[in-house]
Every structure is written in C-alpha cells, then in structure tokens.
C-alpha cells in the first residue's frame, strides 16, 4: 500500500477520473439530444384513461415522475386539443386512474394550427365531394382527405402563379419609382406604359384571387366531426388536417413508415405554428447557403493570406506580429464580429449601396439592413483565421526538399506553388475549410445581429429575377434552436422540435468536423517524420 501511494498511483487514477468525468458529460449531452430528438417522431400509442371521478382523457403519455405529496407516481399526458382545453399537457396522479385502455378507433390529427387533436371520428359532412362509396366512416374519411389534398395541391399551383404576378407587379412598381425619382417629366411615356402593364398584372392577380377564394371556401366546407374523450363534438375542416392516423392500430412497420414520412417532412417542408411544428427546410437551406457563401469569401482570402505568410513574406518581426494577430483573431469573441458586421457591412457599406443604387426605395432599406450577404461576410471574417492557421499547417508540412527540387528544375516560385506545394497542402486547406464551415454552421451570436430572422417569408434563391437575393434575411438552424426554445410562447410544446433541430445541427457539425480531423490526422501521419 505504501509504495502504491508513494509512487503516486492514486494521483494517476485521479487524473483518469477527470478525463472520465469529461467524457461522460459529453456522452450525456449527446445521449440526451439523441434520445429526445430521435424519439419525438415515433408515434406513441394513445391511451384512454378513466379517472376515479368518472372523467376520461385521451392522450399520449409523455413522462412519469415521483409525486411530491404522496408516494405514488405522476403521469404527464399530452392531451392536445389546445382549442378546447387551453393547454396541451395534463398531469395526473397514478392513484387517481381507474382504468387505462388503448382503443383502436382513437384518432390523432396533426392540424395546421392549434397543435394535435386526439379524439374519435364520428361523422363526415362532405357536400358535392365525390368519393368511392361504401366502406367504413374511417375509409371514407381517408378517401375524402385524399381528394381534398389533391385539390389543395392544385390551388397551391395557382397561389404560386399569383405570387409570381405579385412579384412582377412589385418589380414594375419599383421601376416606376426609380424612373420618376430620376426624371418624372422626361420618363413620362415609359412610366405610363409601365403603369399600364402593372395594372394589367394586378387585374389578373385580383381575378385569380377571387377564384381562389371561392375554391378554397368550397374546400373548407368539407368537414369531419370528431368527439374528444369526454364526448364533446368538434368540427374540423379537412383542409386543416395535415396528418391523420390511428396509432393504436399501427404495427411496427406502419410506425416506421410514419417515422420516415415525418423525417421527410422535417427536411423538406416549411415550418408551421411559429416554427414549433412542420419542417425545417428554410432553416436548413438558409444555413447551407450561408455556409457556402461564406466559404466563397473565406477560402480564397484565407489561402492567399496563408501563402503570403508562409511562402512570400520574409520572416521577421512583422510576420511574427501578423501571426500573433491572426491567432488572436481566432480568439476574438464572435459577438464582436457581429457588432463589426453591423457597423461596417450593414450600416457602412449596405447604406452606401442603398444610396447609390436603390435611392427610390429609401427609407426602406435594401442592403442597409441585415441579410444573407452580410451574414456570410461577417462569418467569413470570423473563419478566415481558421483557414489561415490550417492552410499554414498544410503548407508547413510540405517537405522543403520538394520545393527545392521543383525550383532547381527551373520552375518559378509561382509554378512551384501551384503545381507542387498547393496540391500537397490540399488536405490542410480542406481541413481548414471544413472546420470553418462547421464553425459557421454552429455560430449564432453574430448572425442574430446581421440578418437571421425567426421566419423568413422567402428563400434567398427563387425563380424571380435576379434569382439570388443577397439582401434577403434568412433562417438558420442554430438561431431556430434559440428562438423556438427561448422565445416561443409555449416552450413546453416546442421543446421536442428544438431537440430535433439540435440533433440535426449537431449531426451536421460533428460529421463535418470529424471529417476534418480525420483528414488532418491522415495528413500528419503522411508528412511528419517522427523525431523520437
């Protein structure tokens, strides 16, 4: 025992404990995100609970905890039906429950608004909607929904056409504004013809709007009547229903199919209910586009700076200072970059652009407000040090002999650089780029200042001229987490969605950075000669 202590073995075990604690914490973090994020979409059974006082409730069991007063358990149900009960969740003491059943005909509806509905299908009210006759009410319901969905898809096409018309009209309006602010008298003829064109577009828009309103009113008249656990009736238009299913009748495969459908919705659809339901497509799109745009700025600048530092600048006090500065900038808080982006890009350059090119739209800012371009530039600035450091490492790992060989064969410095050094340093550059992208994807604080919004009306790329709208605000996965988790009115109901977003963001970032680390380690093995 004495020698064990004297040799310091307990201390070694102590350091080991520190490492275990760290690793356990990370695993816990990942585990919590995984369990909560992955489990959310799996349809859980709906239980019909009869309480001792005779009342009944229908819902999914979401959690169980020890009751504080007595020694029993407390069960949390998600009872949905926000429009009837006022809140989505209900706590029930286990001791109050008389019986629990899992009826096959319990229906779960996902609605466009007001969250889930749990209840039983009672009857349908479908005037003038032709559906194949026969079958149970449920079959009829499904058939009716199919037909309504098909009509709705048609309407959506019409809506899209209307959006086109509207954006064209808006463009004409801005053109007129520009012309009349420049020279209202000289451009009289042009202005008049533009105005006439615009009137025509607006007339078509209004005609379509009227038709659309009629058609959607007719669609909305198809309803289904449901009853909740206590028997209260609720009439729900079929157009309001996003998804309807009877979880208690579903087998594992049906549930898996359902799960896959939810994932598809998550990745490809628009958000609903102030981002707490539906998909994440605009946020994913915004994040990806912002990161790509950032790479376009940050990669060339970072590489050029690194090449300058490593290959062209003469070693000396200046280069040493510059290197300290670059390393330092990697440590400057990201919010400072955000503040800089706001002061320099948005209010500096952006306002300048507005005054030069879009004076007719003022005081409504075009580039003089946060947008995807400024966000990308700000993040490019933030990630340039990452690219520089990593590229430098890559350049440093290219053996001197190769450079000298190339130069001795008569190649110029630039040829050596492009044909020998850079290709060999590519892994280093790639590492830098990937690390920069991972950093940019996860960074939120500066974006909050320079252009991220909770709900962007349109994507930065669309079918309207000029296709890339660099001035538009955008959505971002990281900000989505902050916004939905901390700013939404119903945090408890929003939490699962935040976990899903977190999981997605974490997966992207971890996949990117593990690739980068893998490439770097490969590179290290390839070029470093072990000194000892």
């Amino acid at each position, binding site marked *: 025992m004495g020698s064990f202590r004297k040799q*310091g073995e307990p201390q070694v075990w102590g*350091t080991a404990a*520190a490492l275990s604690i760290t690793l356990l914490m990370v695993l816990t973090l990942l585990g*919590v995100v995984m369990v909560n994020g992955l489990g959310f979409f799996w349809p859980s059974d709906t239980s019909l609970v009869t309480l001792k006082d005779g009342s009944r409730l229908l819902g999914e069991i979401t959690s169980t905890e020890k009751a504080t007063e007595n020694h029993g358990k407390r069960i949390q149900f998600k009872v949905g039906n926000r429009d009837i009960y006022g809140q989505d969740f209900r706590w029930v003491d286990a001791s109050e429950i008389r019986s629990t059943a899992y009826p096959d005909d319990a229906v779960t509806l996902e609605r466009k608004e007001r969250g889930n509905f749990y209840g039983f299908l009672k009857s349908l009210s479908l005037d003038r909607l032709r559906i194949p006759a026969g079958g149970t009410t449920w079959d009829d319901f499904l058939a009716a929904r199919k037909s309504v969905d098909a009509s709705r898809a048609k309407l959506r096409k019409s809506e899209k056409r209307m959006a086109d018309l509207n954006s064209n009209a808006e463009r004409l309006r801005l053109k007129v504004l520009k012309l009349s602010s420049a020279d209202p008298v000289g451009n009289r003829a042009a202005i008049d013809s533009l105005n006439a064109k615009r009137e025509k577009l607006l007339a078509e828009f209004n005609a379509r709007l009227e038709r659309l309103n009629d058609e959607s009113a007719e669609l909305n008249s198809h309803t289904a009547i449901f009853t909740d656990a206590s028997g209260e009736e609720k009439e729900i238009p079929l157009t309001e229903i996003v998804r309807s299913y009877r979880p208690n009748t579903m087998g594992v495969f049906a549930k898996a199919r359902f799960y896959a459908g939810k994932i598809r919705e998550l990745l490809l659809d628009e958000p609903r209910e102030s981002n707490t339901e539906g998909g994440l497509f605009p946020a994913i799109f915004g994040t990806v586009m912002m990161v790509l745009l950032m790479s376009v700025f940050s990669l060339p600048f970072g590489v050029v700076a690194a090449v300058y530092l490593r290959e*062209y600048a003469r070693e000396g006090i200046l280069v040493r200072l510059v290197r300290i500065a670059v*390393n330092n900038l990697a440590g*400057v808080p990201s919010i400072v970059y955000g*503040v800089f982006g706001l002061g320099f890009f948005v209010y500096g350059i952006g306002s300048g652009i507005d005054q030069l090119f879009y004076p007719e739209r003022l005081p409504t800012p075009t580039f003089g407000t946060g947008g995807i371009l400024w966000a990308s530039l700000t993040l490019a600035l933030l990630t340039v040090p990452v690219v520089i450091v990593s590229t430098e490492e890559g350049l440093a790992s290219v053996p001197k002999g190769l450079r000298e060989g190339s130069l001795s064969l008569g190649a110029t410095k630039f040829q050596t650089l492009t044909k020998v050094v850079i290709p060999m340093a590519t892994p280093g550059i790639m590492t830098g780029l990937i690390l920069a992208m991972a950093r940019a994807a996860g960074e939120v604080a500066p974006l909050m200042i320079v252009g991220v919004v909770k709900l962007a009306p349109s994507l930065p790329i669309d079918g309207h001229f000029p296709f890339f709208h660099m001035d538009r605000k955008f959505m971002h996965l990281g900000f989505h987490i*902050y916004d939905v988790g901390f700013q939404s009115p119903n945090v408890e109901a929003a939490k699962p969605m935040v976990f899903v977003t977190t999981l997605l963001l974490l997966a992207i970032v971890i996949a990117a950075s593990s690739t980068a680390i893998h490439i770097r380690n490969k590179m290290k093995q390839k070029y470093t000669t072990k*000194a000892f």
Partner: protein
Amino acid sequence: MLFRKNDKNTTVSDGKFLARARKNDRLAAWLINTGGFLVILSVTSILVLIMKVAIPLFLSPEATVVSTIKPGGSAPTGEIKGMGVDDELRTGFLLDASGTVTFFDRRTGREIHKITITPPGGGSPTIASASDSGGGRFDILWDDGSFTAMKVSFRSQETGGSDQPAIPAVETMLEEKGTGGGPRPLLSVARFADENSPLRVDLLPGNRFSLSKTTATSDLAGNETVRKVRTPFGDEVPGNVTAVALDTEGEYLYAGTDTGRLLRYDLTDPEAPRLLDSVEANTNGHAVTAVNLVLGDNSVAVADADGSLSTWFPVSETGLGSGKTLTRIHSLARHDGAVTVILPASRSKTIYSLDKAGVVSADHMTSERRLLEMRTAKPLVRFAVSGGDNGAIALDADGNITFWHIDNPHPEVSLKTLFAPVWYESYDKPAYVWQSSAASDDFEPKLSLTPLIFGTLKGTVYAMIFAVPLALLGAIYTSQFMGARLKKYVKPAIEIMAAIPSVVIGFLAGLWLAPLLDKAIVSFFLAFAVIPLCVMLSILIWRRIGSLPRLKRVAPGCEFLLLVPALLIGVYVSHALGGILEASLFAGDLKLWLFNTTGVRSDQRNSIIIAFALGLAVIPLIFTIAEDALSNVPKNLSAASLAIGASRWQTAWRVVLPSALPGIFSAIMIGFGRAVGETMIVLMATGNTPILDWSIFNGFRSLSANIAVEIPEAPVFGTLYRILFLSAVLLFVFTFIINTAAEVLRQKFRKKYGRF
C-alpha cells in the same frame, strides 16, 4: 511533367514561355503580397472600425455660432422680457415689455411677423414679469396685476416644401384679470396638467405665496360649474424668496431664499399646500439665485450667488420610515459669478445656466460633465433653448442676438457614468446600474458597464473553476498515462467536442439541465463528496484485484474506463441520498430553506448551470492545447526520469509538467479568453439580470449577452448603440491582451523545444 507544354514546342517559343512564366510569377508574387497584406490589414482594422463608432461617446459637444444679428428698423421697444427659437433654428422671437412678440429671420435679422398680446384687463399696461416655462410657454404678469399664460408655436407650412420657414403663432392659454384688492404679485406661474383646471401660483410681496386652481366640471345636462380655490400659504419662509420653480404637473413648488435655503411645497391638495422640506442649499449661506426643474420633474437644479450649481431630489432617510428629504445629489461645475437663469433641456437631463458674467453653460446632471460654454464679445443677458435640444439663442448687453447650433448627442456618457457608481434619480444611494431604456422619454438612462463586466468575470471565473482542473488533469492523463491505442480515439473525441455549437450547449443547459438541477440541488452538492468517495473506493478495489495475474495488464493505460462504473454509481448514490437529505434537513425544499434562513434568492438559471455549460465549452480548448504542450515535451526527458527509477506519476509531475508549464498557462489563458466572449451559452442559461452579486444561486448578465440582447433595439448611432460598440471594444481588447500573452508564452515554449 511541369514543362510538358514546353516539350512539344521548339526552342524558339521556349524563351517566350519562360518570359511568360516569369511574368506570371512576378504578377502572382505581387498579387499574393498585396492580397495577403490586405487580408491582414482588413482583419486587424476591425478594432479600428468598431472603435470609430464608440469614440464619439467621449467627444466634447459642440456649439457653433450660426449667426449673429442685430434686429434693425422695427426693433422691439423697451426691455426684452422673453425670447425663443424654433426647432429648425430658422426663426427667433423676442417678447418685449409692451407684450409684443417679434419674429425675425435667423439669417437676415429681418422681421417676419409681429403679434401683440392684448392684456386681459385692457388699457396698455407693461409686463412686470415673464417666466419661461419651457416649450415656448411664457407666464406673463402685467403691471396692472392681470395675468396671461401664452404659448408661442411654429406650424410648418403644408405647401412649398421643407425650405419654407414655419408660420409662427401665439396662443393664449389662460387670462385672468387682476383681483383688484390685495398687493400685485411679483411673479406668477401657471400649469396646465389638467386641461380643464389650470393652476396658478403667485409670489406675493412679503414672501408669501398664493395658489389658485380653477376646476371646471360639467354635469350630465352640460351645465358647466366653475369652482375656484384660492389659498395663501408660506408663513414659514425663512428670508426673502429669490427664486421659484414649479413642476409641469403643478404638484411641487420649489423656492430658494436669500439666506441660502431651499424649500419644497406639496401642492397636490390645492386647499392645503404643505411645506415638505426646508434645507440649506449651501453651507455658507449664499443666496439661492436660480431654481428650475430638470427634465422628468424628479430633480431640481439649484444655483447660488457663489456660482455653484447642483441638483437635488428627495431621498428617503434611512431609519426614518418613508419620509423623504431633499438631498444634494450632483454638484456640477461652478460658475464664475452668480447664476441668474437655469433652463432645462427638453430631450435630456442637460441643464443650461447663465451667470452674471454673461456666459451660458451646459451641464449634464447624471454625468456631471460641463458640456459646453457659450459666450460672445459682450456679456449675455438672456437666453433660450430650442425644443429639439439642438440650438440656443441669446441676447447680449448690446442688443445683439446670437444663434448657436448645438451638437450634443451623448451628454449622459462619461467615464464616471460608465464605470463608477452614480446616484440615479429615485435611488437611495449611488449604485452601479445597467438599465438602458424605459417606457418614458424623460427616463434617466443608467449605463454603468460595471455590472456587465462583473457578470462577465463572474461567469468566466466559475466556468474556469469547473473547467481548468478537469481539462488539465484529463490532459495530463491522456498525454502521460493513456495507452496509445485508446489515445487515438480519445483525442479526436475531445476535439470534436470543441465543435459542438455553443447554442446547443446553451439550449441543453437552459432547458434540460436547469430544471433538472433545480430539483436536485442537494444531490448536486452531495456529489462533490460522494463521487470522490466512490472513485477512491474503486481505486482501492483495483489495488486489491489489480495484482491478480489475469487483471495485471488491464489497468495501466485505461484507468479512465475502469472508473466509469464508479462515477455512475456515485451519481446514482448522490441522487438517491439527495432526496432523502433534502426531505430531512431542509424541509423538502432547499431553495425555500435558503431563502428563509439566509435570504439568498435562487434562480433556476444560475451560476452553477453556467459553470457547467461554459465549462463544457472551454474544456476541449484547454485540453487540446495543454495536451499538445505536454506531449511535445521531449521524450528523452521523461525517458531519463523513468530510467533513474522515478515512477510514472513522479515523472509526469516533476519532470514533464514543469517543462510544459508555459504551454499550460497559455491553454488556460486561451480558455479564459473564450469564456469571456461566449455569448449564446450565457444568453440562454442565465436570467440575464445585471446584478452585482457573487452568489452561485443567481444569474448575471455578461457584456457579450448584453450586446446580443440590446443591439437589435438600439437606434443606430444613438448613445446605447455606441455604448454597445464600446463593450465590443472592451471585449476585443480584453481577449486580445489575453491571447497575445498566451501566444507569446506558446512561442517561447516552442523556441525552448525547437518544434511545435
């Protein structure tokens, strides 16, 4: 391969090719040099640019003379009793003793308009006194004892564009004939807090006041009944009243006397005005020469014959219940002579004052800054300030009128208001407060950065207390004792941990860990005892069974895996024990118990959560750098140590660690720098309340989170906006210093061992 193209060509084009290659090379060299230099330049200019936004905070305000005129021809006759200027500084006006308001153009001095006020009593009396109530309002007392309250306003012209000067107008708000009996008042002031019931206060000869309030009520039938109350008061005035001020609501009357006393009356009950305070305005009995209220009506500015200027407001006396006494709060810069007039600014807590020497000064109440002084060749005798706080007009002894344009964007900021305790209105003592905005316009902004800097340091310190031991010990273990095979997985794992976005950590800390820890706070503290105990027990067990032949080769190199069960058991045991302990010792609720016994309030999102979350964010950074430093200590050092019989711990502790110390310090510093600037975690996992309190049960607000919270609402180029830029500068400078120190240390360390 490089010259494949060259191989195919003849020697004639060889020279051309080489020339082109050389040209390309030179061009590229130039491009890369300038490009590289530009990148460095632009990246380092960040600081300069954010500083550029922050610096105007500290620039002195400027008053520039825009024109000096001498009204010619139809110059007002008699003594000038009042003056003013419109918000655009285009038109000035003078009120002379005959009751004529003359408007004239600022640039030419030409008369534009002339309006004569008819005295209510008829005849042609002259003005005995006119007091400037701000916003173009004048309360005129005629020498026949009648009274007129009037307002000069400027209506912008609807046609003709913005170049046209505004049309002046004079509106009479209250007219009262002299009472006939009784002496003529010396001074009268009216207030219109309620449109139907104007309130008028007169200063009568013999140092008495008289309050009259007219209340017009209409019953259901539409019959108006007018009730008039008239109350004399002020028997107890010590000395002669020399200055009077009434607040906009007409609730409090302030008066100064020639014996240097300051009085405050409560007029809320018009039938029974009460003397609330009678305090000494200065210690040496100088007469009070001017009194006026500061914007917001909370503070009163007082000046005396000695030239001293101060602001006062009622403060509750400690130990005397709810009684409040008028207290001297801010002493502003002194004047050379007695102050004759004090006028408040209408958009900030700036006070303009004119002294006997003829100089107008502007002082800010909160920052106690002397903002500017306005003087002309001849002493000034009368002045007025524009409603937009952007200009002033003054009359000198020779009858010349001077217009100033005043550029005073950030009067409330000084180093003192940013960093030192300031006595804000309605506070009982000087304090460090951050409260940047409120519902009302006359709010006194409280812009102390001290609580934010404190919050930043608090979070960082707690995070470092948590992170540094774990990261460093983990790094020592990984670099010195861990098996190479495991190390290949553990190191990248920690590096990937560094990539976890802070918003994810913040979210989990705020919405998952905080409620969890809220319920299990006792277990948390218990874990500090239970987990080490479990670890020790487990070490002992391994000491016993580790010598068994089959297990002998297991332990070295993967101790950390063997400890995982011990840690899990520790967590479970402390959780189980925590519930029991809380029920038996703290009556089932530690938070309540803490509040009842020690008065410590505890928030759900407190500093413990931050320590965890921020710690988790900096651990990988510290770990990676420290591990690198430890691994880069030449192996021959440790090999020599081991060879002469030192144990692996002794080698690590006495040989490797001291050599790697600079690298480890640099790791800690870089971790510190990261924690200081972290935004999202702090934003999401604390309550963001800017308080000065080291308690681990409260949250705080950090500089970075403050920027994120406030900058979307800050008006561009306003004071708050610039202060937020200033906090960004502070963050930048702070992290820059720390990182530079770390970098220098690291370079030293590299030099020592010749590689990195």
